[in-house]
């Protein structure tokens, strides 16, 4: 057992996974303290699932190492598995078993102590909000209930570390919010949690956010830190039409660092916004684009992410 109380619950150093020529995860460093919720954000194929699978001992790292609860994921995967809860991206409970049967199965597999068993089962059922539906086949449950039950199964044995791989994908907004409440309850009990998601708004619920793109960790910090310090310029919101033509024009305007479509408007990052912003409608108008005066806004994590990923790409392209 791990006796060092001060050690981080998860510690990855230079963690790398290659599949042939393809590098899925590239020298990733990551630390998660007890009671901390770390959001793992990145586009599909960025390497989120691969990283989580390595941390669970399901994939062997090509290089680097990772300790989970003090155990090496490459050398002691079974010890790691005793100390983690894991929810895979795909729903993975047994649809042809009832709620109670699934819980009983995982309780047996995790060897939940018999005197605790009834209490843990009751806890999982009430957490999932499935009281009175214990004998319903799991495949008949709606998405939100399934996800909460899967979480319930993953924490039956009170693991100190929890890995959740896109737990809220395909779940309706109300259920997503409830799910995040549960995650915070667990963090309050000193559980270290790594949650991957592609919903940017969910990043705001995390203590720290790790941005990952093409296998590389692009940035890590609290949501506030990332929003405040990462943007190299000021962010403006611009209502204009047509959007495509506007983007083309803005690409050649000096002082425009970055422009991207956000819904039905543009987000434009400007150097020296005070001076450059008022000129934009006139410049666009000259090219037949209708535009309202730009409005300065606070950057969201998504803005930060878009810029970091775009710059990262440039750095990688330039030799």
């Amino acid at each position, binding site marked *: 057992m791990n006796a060092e109380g001060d050690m981080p619950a998860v510690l990855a150093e230079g963690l790398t996974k290659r599949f042939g020529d393809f590098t899925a995860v590239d020298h990733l460093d990551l630390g998660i303290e007890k009671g901390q919720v770390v959001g793992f954000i990145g586009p599909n194929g960025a390497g989120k699932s691969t990283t989580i699978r390595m941390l669970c001992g399901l*994939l062997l790292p090509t290089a680097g190492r990772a300790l989970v609860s003090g155990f090496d994921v490459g050398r002691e995967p079974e010890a790691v598995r005793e100390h983690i809860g894991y929810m895979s991206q795909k729903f993975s409970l047994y649809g042809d078993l009832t709620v109670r049967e699934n819980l009983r199965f995982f309780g047996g597999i995790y060897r939940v102590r018999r005197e605790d068993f009834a209490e843990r089962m009751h806890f999982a059922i009430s957490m999932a909000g499935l009281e009175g539906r214990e004998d319903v086949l799991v495949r008949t449950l709606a998405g939100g209930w399934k996800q909460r039950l899967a979480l319930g199964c993953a924490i039956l044995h009170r693991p100190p570390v929890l890995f959740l791989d896109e737990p809220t994908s395909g779940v309706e907004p109300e259920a997503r919010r409830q799910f995040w409440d549960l995650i915070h309850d667990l963090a309050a009990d000193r559980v270290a949690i790594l949650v991957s998601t592609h919903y940017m708004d969910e990043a705001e619920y995390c203590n720290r956010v790790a941005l990952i793109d093409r296998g590389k960790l692009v940035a890590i910090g609290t949501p506030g830190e990332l929003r405040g310090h990462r943007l190299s310029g000021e962010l403006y919101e611009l209502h204009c039409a047509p959007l495509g033509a506007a983007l083309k024009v803005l690409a050649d305007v000096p002082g425009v660092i970055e422009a991207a479509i956000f819904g039905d408007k543009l987000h434009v990052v400007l150097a020296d916004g005070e001076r450059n912003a008022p000129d934009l409608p006139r410049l666009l108008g000259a090219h037949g684009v209708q535009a309202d005066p730009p409005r300065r806004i606070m950057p969201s994590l998504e803005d930060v992410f878009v810029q970091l990923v775009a710059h990262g790409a440039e750095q990688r392209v330039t030799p």
Partner: protein
Amino acid sequence: MNLRRLLAMAFKETLQVWRDPRSLAVALLMPLMQMAILGYGVSLDIKHVPLCVYDQENSQASRAIVDRFVSSGWFSVGHVISRESGIRYAMDRGECIAAIVIPVNFSRTLAASGSAPVQAIFDATDVNTTNIALGYAQGVVAQANAAVAAQWNSAHAAQPSLVGQTEIEPSVWFNETLDSRYFIVPGVVAVILALVGAQLTSLTISREWERGTMEQLISTPITALEVMLGKLIPYFVIGMADATFCLAVAIFWFSVPFRGSVGTLFVTTALFNVVVLGIGYLISVRIRSQLGASQVALLVTMLPTTLLSGYTFPIDQMPAPIRALTFFVYPRYYVTILRAIFLKGSGLADLWAPLLGLSLYAAAIIWLAARAFRKRL
């Protein structure tokens, strides 16, 4: 190895089989259907061979010969014809596969010399059937000869001792009535157990991969050995239940004589089940789709059990290379064992050779199966 995890796995697997209509059908209906189809359908005996009679003489002696054919039970007279060309016609239409022609001077020749020729014609399109029918016909004729010889001897007051006749008195052991069903039905049981067992376990690991539950399962502390045993225990129980059913049908419905002990039967059947379930499991670990796994399982159980186990085609009559190959075919040991237990009442000590073969096979399969499953993606 932890008993708690093992039992959790076994219980879960039992629930899943119980709720899977396809597995249930394989476990319960397949033995029933196959027992009926193979038990009734496969018979090497030929009874009531359709016979065409062209009796040119139509005397008391010639009718006596025809009666001998009919009363033997092997032949039944379909046609009595009056022209030689009628034989060809009846054979072409498939109305008979054997014909006898009794010449016009049959009784006169017989009375004068003590022997007279009778022509038998066979349709040899189906060589197997023809050979058997030919054998029956020779048997009938031999009996007739004996009767005629006895008559002739007494009529001519000849001394039989002077002729110095030697007779073979056949004594058939273990399957006294030479009923091929007694020989085949125990083999059918082996075929069914192999098919059903491997089919069921071939789905067990591939099902978890296909439904996406495997990733969750291997993230838990359950060991590969616990997964294997936990999954095989329920199927072992099903396999033994199926075996009991099939063997009971063989004994009580098909009336195959059972001369051995139930204990010997139980031990050997359990061993065979282990081999079969292990093979299905091994396939399931290797092939991650249920359909693919069940196809491969069908192939590797169906072909060797039906063709090379000796269940219908005698191993002794196979060419030497094929015969050598049968030593690697696990059902051959069980078919041999079952027949010996049923018909000869052999005990475990008598069966040491096939038992050793089967045990080695079981050990090898379980060793491979236990190592095959890795808790990695």
